[in-house]
């Protein structure tokens, strides 16, 4: 005959069921609910509405506000690279081997005077040096010193045409190794493009920009997160809209679901 189990054991078992039930209920109602909403177009559109609100409020608070600059003592010993650290492909390898002698920056789109600029031509322009904090979307920060020409100077040389609203940065590095179409790109509005601290930088911490940080030229958009500051620049395109570029969201990471406005 089967001996009845002690009461406390039954209770423990029941508690086990209860706990499993609660966990399942929590998982299916709460978490799984949020997971389901995360792949629901309408729900995501509602969540995304906060981005425009943030952008609008930030612009109302100050379009020209300056990012904090730091004394040389605050510069980090090594500037942490992220994303691409060595672009794949023969084109970049050849440029690197020749010291970027044949590299050119194209400035085109909605401009009256398209430009093809060599590194030497850029370096002959008036420059700005700034020690700023780079904030990655992942959460870390790193302080470094950048030297470059203000993007506003280059855009003024190119002369924007009426209707220009955004500046799109096109890069040399592909994000998927075997996909030549997966070149990095990003975009900012004209407030950020013409900002005093927005640079096309060729120097980091007093030395030529290292390959892992974007040689020969990268953008510095100091009041936005790191993914808005493209490296390995090849082309600056002035546009009225970016819906027809890439997947239409204004940048490589934006096409993957990240916010276009990355001031937070």
């Amino acid at each position: 005959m089967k001996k009845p189990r002690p009461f406390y054991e039954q209770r423990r078992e029941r508690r086990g069921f209860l706990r499993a039930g609660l966990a399942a209920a929590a998982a299916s109602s709460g978490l799984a609910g949020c997971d389901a909403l995360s792949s629901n177009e309408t729900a995501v559109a509602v969540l995304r509405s906060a981005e425009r609100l943030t952008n609008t409020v930030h612009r109302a608070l100050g379009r020209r506000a300056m990012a904090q600059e730091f004394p040389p003592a605050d510069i980090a010993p090594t500037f942490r690279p992220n994303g691409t650290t060595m672009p794949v492909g023969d084109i970049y390898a050849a440029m690197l081997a020749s010291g970027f002698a044949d590299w050119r920056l194209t400035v085109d789109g909605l401009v009256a005077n398209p430009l093809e600029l060599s590194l030497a031509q850029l370096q002959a322009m008036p420059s700005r040096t700034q020690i700023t904090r780079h904030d990655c979307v992942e959460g870390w920060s790193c302080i470094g010193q950048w030297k470059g020409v203000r993007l506003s100077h280059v855009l003024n040389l190119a002369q924007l045409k009426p209707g220009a609203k955004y500046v799109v940065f096109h890069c040399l590095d592909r994000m998927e190794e075997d996909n030549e179409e997966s070149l990095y790109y990003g975009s900012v509005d004209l407030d950020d493009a013409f900002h005093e601290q927005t640079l096309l930088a060729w120097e980091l911490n007093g030395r030529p920009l290292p390959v892992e940080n974007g040689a020969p030229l990268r953008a510095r958009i100091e009041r936005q997160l790191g993914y808005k500051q493209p490296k390995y620049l090849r082309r600056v395109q002035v546009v009225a809209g970016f819906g027809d570029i890439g997947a239409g969201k204004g940048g490589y990471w934006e096409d993957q679901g990240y916010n276009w406005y990355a001031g937070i």
Partner: protein
Amino acid sequence: MGELIYRHRLPVRIMHWVNVVCLVILLMSGLQIFNAHPALYWSEDSREGTKVLEITQKQADGQSRGVTRIGPFEFDTDGVLGNSRGADGMEPRAFPAWITIPGPQWLAMGRLWHFFFAWLLVANGVAYVLWTLFSGHLRRDLLPTRGEWHGIGRSLRDHLLLRHPRGEEARRYNVLQNIAYLTIVFGVLPLIVLGGWAMSPMMDSFVPGWVDWLGGRQAARTLHFGAAMLLVAFLAVHLFEVVITGLVNNLRSMITGYWRQPE
């Protein structure tokens, strides 16, 4: 049966439940965001030497184990922190899938949830503060009287012994409740919002150098996380008190407003 009294007015009830939704989603999506760089520092940028907390993996006997380091101390937190079960078996991640929104590692989506509900929390918080000021809720219910301050020792002892006020005395918030609510509303929540703003490079630019008041951007990130943990501690005590002083009665009072006074 005690007397049924109207305890919580409609605006407070609505704002309470909006808060519940916001805080749960902000906490869980915040842990998702934390997972993208599961370390905290006490400085302007992320320097190894100023690291105060890290959730990571450690190789031991050819196996990867989840560990949590707080200052110089290391704890084996395998199974929960550092290494836990996801959709595809064990995976290296700081906080486990069952406590993050969304469940899988998905930083972009975590940020969407976080920033939407951050706005809602701030709107709700501003509405609440205005309400407490103009309805008299702050003066009448939240600020302790001189007599209540003097009774703080007794109130503390009663709480620890799980003795709760009855009758007429139970109608008012007790002094420990007052202190807890005031600290959360005017201390912890503003700190968490400030810490959040300090992490925004654009917000940092509006008043040059203000982030240094918090110890720098990475210190602000640590404060933001620490304040969130204080909120979790408050919620644990709050829920405990809700349950032991009469779950159904308390829940009804926060839904319908009516609360039965214990005899």
